[in-house]
């Protein structure tokens, strides 16, 4: 059977995630300046405008206790694993690491890189507001982005013009639109691709140079729309929760006893990364960036509507449920995460009212696949109303 082109492209995306180091080094050899980031609360457009390629630092899911003598053990395993990448010098080819202040666990992972992994001179912390939906917060964000731009101009030794930023915004918006169109295929009952494939592509786009990624995405979307057979999605499952870059989990969810498909992933390694746009053609570029980033699906560490204490993400999740029509919801969050469980306890009553069954998967560096399979099979059996 001749290999479909879309399969080849997805295979290329997958090989990039599987050996990020190889991809990163290849960019480095082409003379590109590379900046690593762990938390997505950074204005990547400013980095791109300075000619720097932002690369997300992914984890190796290799259980170790070394980071327990740098970070307390009740911190989430994602922060431990990110810190471990620094201590193992897996990303030494990066010229810079950047982070925005968000949850304290990821802040500590960044600190380990700065203090113990040799990135003290090559690091920058953007003071990102925590309660982002207020007027003062936008002003503070614009000022912080301005200071970040000054730092980059000193770091690269060349000025960053408004045109550079505008061009970067349009490249990034294109990337976001393409990823959105990829996931929109999954709305239909007979999608031409699976959630695992879309998740793989999204994760890869976070480590790639956006122009190269946009080219591959355009090609992929054309091909997926035409050459692929459309199979029934079977049980449609929506994932919501924290960062999860472990493809084995998505593979498990789509290889259960009965046919099932992941139709949406609300996480910063998926939808929360690209489900927004930065307004283009504005005179003040930094204000445009601030307005765009405030419009994202909020991360649980930054979701507090002023005056009511309501959570904006809940409204958006209701919207995704209406659009993507999942049969079941899977909560994926890191063991020891602090903000996520506080959202889960609020989301469960909402799902009960909508009559959608759910299950919690507690992630860690290593995951008990057989136990998760039993939990996921049980969820599918509830959805299919199995009776002896």
């Amino acid at each position, binding site marked *: 059977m001749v290999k479909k082109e879309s399969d080849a492209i997805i295979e290329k995306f997958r090989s990039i995630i599987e050996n990020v180091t190889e991809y990163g080094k290849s960019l480095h050899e082409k003379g590109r300046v590379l900046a690593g980031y762990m938390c997505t609360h950074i204005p990547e457009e400013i980095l791109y405008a300075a000619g720097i390629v932002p690369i997300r630092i992914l984890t190796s899911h*290799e*259980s*170790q*206790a*070394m980071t*327990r*003598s740098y970070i307390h*053990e009740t911190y989430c395993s994602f922060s431990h694993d990110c810190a471990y990448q620094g201590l193992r010098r897996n990303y030494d080819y990066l010229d810079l690491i950047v982070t925005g202040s968000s949850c304290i666990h990821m802040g500590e992972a960044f600190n380990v890189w700065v203090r113990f992994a040799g990135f003290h001179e090559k690091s920058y912390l953007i003071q990102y507001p925590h309660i982002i939906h207020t007027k003062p917060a936008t002003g503070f964000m614009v000022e912080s982005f301005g200071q970040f731009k000054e730092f980059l101009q000193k770091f690269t030794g060349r000025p960053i013009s408004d045109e550079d930023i505008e061009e970067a915004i349009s490249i990034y918006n294109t990337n976001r639109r393409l990823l959105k169109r990829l996931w929109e295929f999954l709305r239909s009952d007979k999608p031409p691709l699976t959630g695992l494939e879309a998740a793989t592509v999204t994760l890869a786009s976070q480590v790639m140079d956006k122009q190269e990624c946009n080219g591959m995405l355009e090609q992929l979307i054309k091909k997926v729309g035409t050459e692929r057979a459309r199979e029934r999605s079977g049980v449609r499952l929506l994932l919501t929760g924290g960062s999860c870059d472990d493809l084995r989990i998505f593979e498990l969810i789509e290889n259960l006893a009965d046919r099932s498909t992941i139709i949406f992933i609300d996480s910063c390694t998926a939808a929360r990364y690209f489900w927004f746009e930065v307004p283009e053609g504005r005179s003040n570029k930094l204000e445009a960036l601030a307005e765009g980033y405030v419009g994202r699906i909020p991360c649980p560490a930054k979701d507090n509507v002023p005056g009511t204490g309501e959570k904006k993400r809940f409204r958006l999740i209701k919207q995704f449920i209406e659009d993507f029509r999942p049969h079941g919801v899977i909560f994926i969050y890191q*063991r020891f995460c602090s903000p996520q469980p506080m959202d889960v306890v609020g989301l469960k009553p909402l799902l009960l009212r909508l009559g959608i069954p759910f299950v919690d998967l507690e992630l*860690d*560096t*290593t995951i*008990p*696949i*057989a*136990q998760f399979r039993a939990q996921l099979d049980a969820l599918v059996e509830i959805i299919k109303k199995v009776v002896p």
Partner: protein
Amino acid sequence: MNNGKIVAGIDAGHLNTKAVLIKDGRILSYAKAPTACDVLAATQNVLNEALKNAGVSPDRLSGMYITGVFRNMVETRTLNVGGTVPEYIADAKGALFLDNKARTVIDIGGNVHMAISFDESGNVLDVIENDKCAEGLGIFYRNMAKVLGVTEEELSELALRATKRVSVAIQCRLSAESEAIDLMCQGVEIEDIADAIARFIADRVAAMCTYVALRKKVVVAGGLAKSQAVIKHLQNMIKEEVSVGDLPEYVGAIGAAVSYGGAK
């Protein structure tokens, strides 16, 4: 050492109680029995056995010194106890007695593990103990041997024959046990799981050791020191040569006897 006199050292640990008889700087005999929460009976039992092994009658004992986590439960009139010694002081003295070049001892006990650095005369310089979630490595090793259906020695041999690198949860012995069984239920080879178990123990101990400056020569004590797989992993994690004497689980008891109940 008071010459000609026979001194007994007892280590009443969480899992096992160990006894050792020392005369003129030489170990006469040693004996071990499960503590089984009846510390008095266990102490009496191991003491008699040690005396029997050495062919020595109880009245020739000039003194008895107790260490181990249950040491306060042995101070009774029936046994003429010379004094008690905190575990880390006993470990330091014992390690020095067995190897005078030793300056650090890593004691992986049944429930608690610690690392102690000391000077050339056995004075304790620094001590670090395990934190709560890392407790019970000895219990864990014994449980995993039962789950894999092998003895503890075989578990170590299996681990040394491992080919693939798999890992179990690092947080605590129960998550690790659960994920080891999970790996078995995924059809992973027993050897690789045994290796993951040994690596888990070494990982946890090595992480604790980063808090103290490991002074050369590092000695490992405690029951788990007999597992070569754990020692292999521990060595390349702390990047330090470690040596294991032939009586690793008796280091505490020896230290108690040698220090003549020097401490309080």
